[in-house]
């Protein structure tokens, strides 16, 4: 009965209802797009950074992270791969042997990050071969060559086909010294990597370190950032937790996580301002409504309508209007986001260069996580309901005689 009354009421003045609903509609749409855009950018950034470095999740031998020495590596295990790949969220597994060594050419020497990689797998996940700027990419897992960061190469004053000398610490205190031909130079976005990294085929790295078949980590790549913590738990379940440890990129690269956190705080403030403006718009239309309907409300009270019921009707009206606006907003939001997920924005010009310098694809993706739609809609809905209490308050205080005479 009340609902019906409210429904009829809101269509008595169509223009007013449509204006209010439209302001809600735009509020929801803007909030969704903004959130979807920022989340999309973050996801893309994480994906880019993570695919070169740690992977979304990483599996080590238990205790490796606290003491990252080659003695804490583990034996490559097909069984482990099988168990991990059973999980549907796992897209790729990248085995690596990561160590530190001294790299030397002529009379220049520098400490470097030595990454023993499976060239084919890296190629699939992070398109490493596309970043080669001189020479060629590593072909097989056993080739006796290295590929190094372009920044490192210029510091060592070395070119393609020169011989790089590597000296490090081998497995169980053995020595690790070898020389390799430089097959290619690679330009990576992350400056730190670009200036420090030496890629070498996994088998060669294992041979050099006297660590046959051993890995320091298996990186797990996912299709999308999902609930990492839960995935970590489930992966840990499927493998032996006494032997291995599973870590998320957030644990391994807290600085990236913190950067995103700080950056999104700024975005929350912007969204907050957006909500503020929207609320005032809504509040305006509500005020107008109460002013226009003062006479009517006065009569209703005078003929014996209970104020409480009247308040509920007004509240229902406002909820209905918000709901209409929200639904329209979600539908439009979904469509816009869908459009942009299929046709992401390709940046051009200067911004593109800036992005590429940081090693991030110059493409803006929109995140299409359900969470965004639900949360943003709920926030706007709650706001409009809160605001609807004001007309209710007015009704409770309304003096029927004055109202009828006005």
């Amino acid at each position, binding site marked *: 009965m009340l609902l019906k009354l409210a429904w009829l009421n809101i269509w008595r003045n169509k223009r007013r209802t449509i204006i209010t609903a439209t302001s809600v509609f735009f509020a929801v749409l803007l909030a969704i797009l903004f959130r979807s855009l920022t989340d999309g950018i973050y996801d893309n950034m994480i994906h880019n950074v993570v695919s070169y470095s740690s992977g979304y999740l990483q599996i080590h031998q238990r205790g490796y992270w606290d003491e990252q020495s080659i*003695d804490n590596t583990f034996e490559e295990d097909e069984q482990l791969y099988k168990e991990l790949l059973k999980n549907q969220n796992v897209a790729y597994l990248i085995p690596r042997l990561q160590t530190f060594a001294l790299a*030397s050419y002529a009379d220049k020497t520098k400490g470097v990050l030595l990454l023993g990689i499976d060239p084919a797998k890296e190629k699939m996940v992070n398109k490493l071969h596309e970043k080669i700027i001189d020479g060629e990419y590593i072909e097989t897992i056993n080739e006796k060559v290295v590929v190094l960061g372009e920044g490192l190469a210029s510091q060592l004053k070395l070119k393609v086909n020169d011989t790089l*000398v*590597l*000296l490090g*610490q*081998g497995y*169980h*205190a*053995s*020595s690790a*010294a*070898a*020389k390799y031909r430089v097959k290619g130079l690679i330009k990576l976005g992350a400056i730190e990597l670009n200036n420090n990294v030496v890629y070498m085929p996994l088998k060669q790295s294992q041979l050099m370190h*006297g660590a046959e078949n051993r890995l320091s980590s298996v990186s797990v790549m996912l299709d999308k950032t999902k609930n990492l913590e839960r995935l970590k738990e489930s992966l840990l379940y499927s493998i032996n937790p006494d032997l291995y440890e599973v870590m998320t990129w957030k644990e391994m690269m807290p600085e990236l996580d913190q950067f995103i956190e700080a950056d999104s705080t700024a975005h929350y403030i912007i969204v907050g301002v957006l909500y503020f403006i929207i609320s005032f718009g809504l509040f305006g239309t509500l005020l107008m409504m109460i002013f226009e309907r003062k006479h009517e409300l006065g009569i209703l009270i005078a003929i014996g309508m209970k104020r409480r019921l009247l308040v509920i009707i007004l509240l229902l009206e406002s909820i209905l209007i918000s709901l209409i606006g929200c639904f329209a907003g979600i539908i439009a939001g979904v469509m816009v986001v869908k459009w942009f997920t299929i046709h992401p924005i390709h940046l051009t010009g200067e911004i593109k260069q800036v992005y590429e310098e940081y090693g991030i694809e110059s493409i803006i993706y929109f995140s299409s996580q359900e969470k965004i739609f639900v949360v943003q809609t709920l926030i706007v809905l709650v706001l409009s309901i809160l605001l609807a209490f004001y007309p209710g308050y007015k009704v409770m205080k309304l003096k029927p005689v004055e109202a009828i005479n006005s």
Partner: protein
Amino acid sequence: MKKSQFLKFTLSAIFFIMSVIIAFGQQDLSATDIVKKADDNMRGKTSQADITIKIIRPTWSREMTMKAWSKGDDYSMILITSPAKEKGTVFLKRTKEVWNWIPSIERNIKLPPSMMSQSWMGTDFTNDDLVKEASSVVDYDHTLLGKDSVLDKDCYKIQMIPKPSAAIVWEKVIVWIDILDYLQLKAEFYDEDGALVNIMNSSDIKVLGGRKITSKIEMFPVDKKGNSTVIIYNDIVFDVPINDNFFTTRNMKQLK
């Protein structure tokens, strides 16, 4: 008859006096002399040794064999002979410098000061130990703390404090030196906070190269339980002349 009696008397008197002098002389041996004597016992003018080093860690262990040449305090050379991966690696010490020849990269590296405090070949010894260990006589002030027994042997317990001019990381070193054979049986190394860092035990006294030496030396870092390094002298020859030219960076590359 009288003559022979007199001779006997004088002889016995001389023997008596001699023995008294020797006994007193031994009493009077200063702490520095004891350390020097112990040091000389293990070192000699030159030495050539065949050594096995075992690195013991809680979860694994590893064995290396090597040949070592030394001349006085200033020169020494070490050639790794096994395992195969390290075979041919050479360390040369010339006074305060350490050079490292690595055949697999055909490079001769002079160890920089920053690497001196790092582990030598993964053992519990540092590169620094390789260079500075020699000057235990010259670079320390020695005080005799008294007598103590180690492994049922009576020992002098001597405290060695580095001289201000010496570049030594320890605050003090306490050594136990066997009274009979003048062999160092134990040493304790303390850092600048006075905390015990390393314990070095020497045992298995054997006659090698015509001398009595401790053929087994064990190093225990105190803060790492289950870690130790054992040095075993399989064979050693003392005082065979070695030319100074032997201890050159050029010779490192052709050493076999």
